[in-house]
């Protein structure tokens, strides 16, 4: 039995660019306004999974990328379109500031429910494993519980056959093969396939889109909490039971690590030997 047309959603987030040095406050926290931005690297695997799933489905399959964040986050939605995602949606609202995972999963679940009404019920929802700025790995599973979908986490490979998911998920010390029914939510591990390079057609489409406001509205839908009928009290700071009592700089992690770089190998080896010798001397005194 061939697979049916799959209606696929993928959740993506914009995070501070780990490669840029700008936007780090003196106390070590991130100044999000100043920091360079990028697609959460874990979500790139989720996006690849969504695009692969689209190929497994019938010819009418489609992928919608969904994000939550301030307006500049539309950049990652453009990026998603370049890679071949069909439509995108951004939930953007000042009231979302300071959301913890519970409030985030609530707002995103409401957004998905809203999209299910206009863009069709889901067959698959993909999430990255975690984000590089939050690192909790909670949001995906929380959304899944709220939407009452089948949940498969830590997926590093999957196939859809006869409208059933056959997935391989990482477990401690090994991997596990699971079979699951649609509709399902999968969180994708970073041992899954790398995101393929953008497509020419996708890149062309996005450039045309940027010149055409009406088309932008169609393909990058920007909505707020009122649109998705979310309860403000369950969003943002108000909806976040997590309390950050204090943050502090833990200083330099680990022992003495000297980086030898930027010189010829010969010089670096000499340098390493010189440092090692002095360390050995120091130690022998003890």
């Amino acid at each position: 039995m061939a697979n049916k047309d799959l209606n696929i959603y993928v959740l993506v987030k914009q995070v501070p660019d780990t490669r840029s040095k700008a936007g780090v406050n003196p106390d070590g926290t991130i100044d999000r306004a100043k920091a360079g931005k990028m697609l959460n690297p874990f979500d790139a695997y989720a996006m690849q999974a969504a695009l692969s799933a689209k190929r497994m489905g019938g010819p009418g399959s489609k992928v919608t990328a969904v994000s939550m964040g301030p307006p500049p986050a539309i950049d990652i939605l453009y990026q998603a379109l370049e890679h071949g995602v069909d439509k995108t949606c951004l939930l953007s609202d000042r009231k979302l500031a300071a959301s913890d995972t519970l409030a985030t999963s609530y707002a995103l679940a409401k957004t998905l429910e809203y999209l299910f009404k206009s863009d069709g019920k889901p067959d698959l929802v993909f999430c990255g494993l975690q984000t590089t700025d939050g690192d909790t790995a909670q949001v995906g599973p929380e959304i899944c519980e709220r939407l009452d979908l089948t949940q498969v986490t830590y997926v590093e490979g999957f196939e859809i056959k006869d409208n059933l998911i056959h997935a391989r998920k990482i477990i401690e010390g090994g991997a596990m093969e699971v079979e699951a029914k649609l509709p399902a939510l999968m969180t994708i591990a970073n041992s899954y396939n790398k995101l393929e390079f953008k497509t020419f057609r996708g890149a062309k489409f996005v450039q045309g889109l940027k010149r055409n406001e009406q088309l932008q509205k169609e393909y990058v839908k920007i909505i707020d909490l009122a649109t998705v009928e979310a309860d403000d009290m369950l969003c943002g700071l108000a909806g976040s039971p997590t309390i950050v009592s204090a943050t502090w700089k833990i200083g330099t992690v680990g022992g003495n690590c000297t980086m030898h770089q930027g010189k010829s190998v010969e010089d670096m080896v000499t340098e390493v030997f010189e440092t090692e010798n002095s360390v050995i001397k120091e130690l022998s005194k003890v």
Partner: protein
Amino acid sequence: MATVEKELAKNTTKQKGPITYDLVLIGASPANLTLAHRLCDLMALKPEMHLSVAILEKSEEFGGHIVSGAVVNKKIFDKAFPNHIEDGMPIESICEESSFALLGRKKKFDVPSAITRALLPDFCKEGYYVLTLSNVVAWMAETLQAKAATVPNLDIDMYNGFPATEIRYENDKISAVKVSNTGVDLEDYVHGDLFCFADKGFLSKDIIKKFELADNPQIWSVGVKETWRLRSDAPYLKGKVWHTLGFPTLDGTLGGGFVYGLDHNRVTIGQVISLDSKNPNIHPQKQLQELKKHPWLQNILRDGELLHYGAAVLPEGGPASLPKAFQVDGALLMGDALGLLDVKALAGVDKAMESGYIGAEVVFESFSKRDFSKEQLSKYQKKLLASPFMDKYKANRYFRQAFIKNPDLLEKYLPIFVDGFDKGGFLWGGLKAFLANPIGLTVQTFSALIHLNAPNEINDEVRYMPGYEHIDPNFTKEMIARNQSDEKYQKTTIYSREDAVFYAQTKYEVHPEHIDEFSAETCLKCIKTYEAKGLDVPCVSDCTAEVHRLDIRDGGVKVHGMSLENCVQCRTCELICPEQNLRVNAAYSAGGPNFKGL
């Protein structure tokens, strides 16, 4: 249908028709970006005409695959970018002092400026811009986007990471180029009415071959260069420009160095070496290291910091190598792809940009008439050849011939001169070279001077052989001149080729496969030939990054292998492989170096 719906139908990602543009520019190069800027101006004057343009660039960032000097004639910017100062074009400095220097292993002699002005006026660069061309190209791309947004009847789409790798023809007219490798034909080809190639030969060489446009082959050189940040008390170099001759290219090959003082206490140093050399092992990157060991440069570089390394080839043939036609049905050739570099003055940027400027006018007219035939496009060739920016290029047409006809000058007398110069000074060096063969030197110098400064035709038909045909497996001279062993140099200023690659920031996200080796059998034979002579095989020695290697297989057989993840896509190996057993293609998916800052 309402306009939005029409747009939707046309633009939806689901739409699966062929990908089509009116005009396709291959390479976001100085030539093509100048063309696109000029086209904005022209299109603004004709709002009833609509054009869609795609610019294909193989690098991840605009300027990311551009290596140049670059000291550039300011006039071309005044013409093509009249507001470049207000628009914030990045200029490193304006040349205040330009010198031509002869280098021994230890000594340096700055030729008095009166003599340079009389004999080598092309090397007097006072008033020229000193540029980091990769940054200027990025600026051209950025300002183009802003400018195109103000011209509603011109849609310019800019593609990074999409090279053109193959040409498709329909009845001998170029109809499409391949830009990706998904395996789905409709997704992988971009169609157009007109194509402009400013790709330094990557793909345009196929057009020249197919239409038999070249009577005389192009000859190429390779330029390797580094940019350094200097220690705070280093000599102040901003605005200073040197071109050098002599050490370390003393193997008979034509070669020379350049040292350009940049802004913010930085300097750029490079060596350009002709590839029509008998020497099978030129080692361009090592030659650059030898140049840096020179006491003059040590004084500059000591305690400095290497910022970037890169390499690129330069077309040196001049007018003699120009294709018969600069255009074919549906395509124009521009800049280095055409061979517009004046090697005597080491100047190609101005002419590349002028080819773009004139190209834009002809492209505009061709779209107005919807005529893309080579007859219509031939106006480009006529106008370009008549441009004042081409005057010096044409006047210097015998430069390479001067050394080809008088080979002893570089092979014999220059090394003798350098030896004597180091021991007893400039005059002593000159005398020693003279005494080696008074008549020979005089005759060859005289003949060379006639060629170098020939104002008119001298009835000397220029004939070149491609670089690889010059390589002599029996070559016995010193491959690279070494700095005197007693000279002190700071080890941290010298980099092995492996280490240099790190400063070219090569990155291939997708496993690279962009160089074709046609026959393993041919390589085996080649390896045997050079090993028997105690030489390296040319691709291994002359690669500017650390790509070609010999692998030892069972039974001790040596085979040719490649570490393509290091490749900076300079094309040197393709040009020097004596068996013509390699082809360097542009890599897909934005793979390659990052030359920003070079």
